[in-house]
């Protein structure tokens, strides 16, 4: 199987703190891979390294075989690496329609276009509609984003990342904070993501992890602790120990 995303010996130090400790990780093409670990394990730092928000102290990152370690965040997005944020990062004053339209026109190279009115191209309209339907946002397209229900905001967060047409999609706790009533819709759309997009899911919610992922990596103290199939990891006594907060002898 080909590798969609790979890190080799990735290290990030903040002063004396080692937030990412020599992580060598592979995400296979089309994978549904979950990254779990207790709070403060360094999962979000790892995501920030992958997306280029912060620079690694050492190590390399490859996207579909090409090194992207030194690439600026927006260029990584253009190469097909998109993410969602654990805490909603949206444009509060814009509507979902504008937000998705923005992402689509950026991806299709329209962002430099300063003369045509946004939405004057047929392909862009079609794609906005397709994404809005996929993420069940058609009935709230014209609302101000800040007025949307939280579950809808989470859906929009994923929709925007999806509008970048990623080859690899990093989902940082997509279900965090979503009320029970809106959860089902969110999980269904996540499960229905097309298989040609490789997904790395960072999540605390074990129900979501077990229902969605086919591989799981466990991160503890910035290092990869173990990796395996859902069965292997869920029955691993060491993983249970980590999650129950007991010390593990290594």
């Amino acid at each position, binding site marked *: 199987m080909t590798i969609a995303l790979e890190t080799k010996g990735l290290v990030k130090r903040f002063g004396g703190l080692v937030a990412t400790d020599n992580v060598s990780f592979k995400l296979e093409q089309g994978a549904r891979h979950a990254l779990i670990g207790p709070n403060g394990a360094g999962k979000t730092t790892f995501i920030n390294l992958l*997306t280029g*928000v912060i620079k690694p102290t050492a190590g390399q990152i490859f996207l579909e075989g090409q090194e992207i370690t030194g690439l*600026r*965040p*927006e260029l990584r*997005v*253009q190469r097909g690496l*998109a*993410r969602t*944020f654990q805490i909603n*990062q*949206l*444009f*509060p*004053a*814009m509507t979902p*329609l*504008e*937000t998705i*339209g*923005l*992402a689509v*026109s*950026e*991806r299709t190279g*329209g*962002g*430099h*276009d*300063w*003369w*045509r*009115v*946004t*939405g*004057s191209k047929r392909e862009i*309209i*079609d794609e*906005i*509609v397709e994404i*809005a*339907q996929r993420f069940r946002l*058609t009935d709230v*397209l*014209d609302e101000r984003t800040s007025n949307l229900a939280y579950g809808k905001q989470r859906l929009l967060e994923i929709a*925007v*990342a999806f*509008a*970048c047409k990623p080859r690899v999609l990093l989902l940082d706790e997509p279900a965090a904070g979503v009320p029970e009533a809106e959860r089902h819709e969110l999980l269904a759309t996540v499960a229905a993501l097309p298989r040609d997009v490789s997904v790395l899911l960072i999540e605390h919610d074990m129900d979501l992890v077990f229902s969605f992922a086919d591989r799981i990596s466990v991160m503890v103290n910035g290092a990869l602790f173990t990796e395996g199939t859902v069965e292997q990891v869920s029955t691993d006594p060491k993983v249970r120990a980590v999650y129950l907060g007991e010390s593990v002898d290594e």
Partner: protein
Amino acid sequence: MSTNIADHVRATLVRRGRWGIGEILFWLIAAATLYFLPERHLILNEIVIIGLFALSLDLILGYAGIVSLGHAAFFGLGAYTAGILARDGIADPLLGLGAAAIAAALLGFVTSFLVLRGSDLTKLMVTLGVALVLGEIANQASWLTGGADGLQGIAMGPILGLFEFDIFGTTAYGYSLTVTFLLFILARRIVVSPYGLSLRSIRDNPLKARAVGIPVNRRLVAVYTLAAAYAGIAGALLAQTTQFVSLDVLAFHRSADVMLVLVIGGVGYLYGGLIGAIVFKVLQDVISAWTPQYWQFWIGLILVIIVLAGRERLTERVRVLWKGVAGRTAKSPETLPKTSAREV
């Protein structure tokens, strides 16, 4: 079902590019003043120039979220460029306008790299600093600029070889209004384009804008350069139509006034600068006629009220009041388009 949505999506997006009745009225009225208010052309000319200057600030502040306390740097550079060219025998106004735009754009481009780093406070200080530096250079280089005495001996040729400037300011006003209108059309296109949308997204959330693949810095450099060119043209218009340039064009109060004008009229809404300029000048006129020594007190007080009460709330209150007065028969009283700042 999905074609319905597609039509809706297209209509919603494209609608922003269309001109509202209020907008068309606004410019018709502006054009009409060329014929109906001949004795006011000198002050109208000044209003239009301040309006264009404020429009330029709105491009960076309202649409891209870049704060500036030194926008006069570009205004002043444009004024001096056009003024010096005209003094030294290049009397064609449009040529001067172009040169001023290029000079200001160059300065904008170069300083954008300083301005775009750091927090809002850094931006305020850096922009302020650039304007101060330019002001001092203009003061010291009196062989070029006339220093504190001002730049004298500007003689403008006719516009396009056809329209001579007159002492009533009619040609001047027509000229400034036309230039401002053309630049307004351009700005209006820009803010509804995908590029304009990306600017708004950067203003709202730069982190997310990057995550969508937007090259944030490049977009900001572009708009800062463009706004600088606009400000330079506004300055050039002032130099050409008043045929005089003094150090005042680079002064701090110019940068502060233009911010004031924009706040009065509304930020992030292209008409804000123009309306603000009208209100500002009229207020200045009325108040200083009534109490010449204390007009700044009243302007200051009005500013405080506007900022504290929130312009949107004030206009909303006026709208509600008007609806109450006009009853249900009158439709849409405002001559301004209803689209709020965030939508245009």
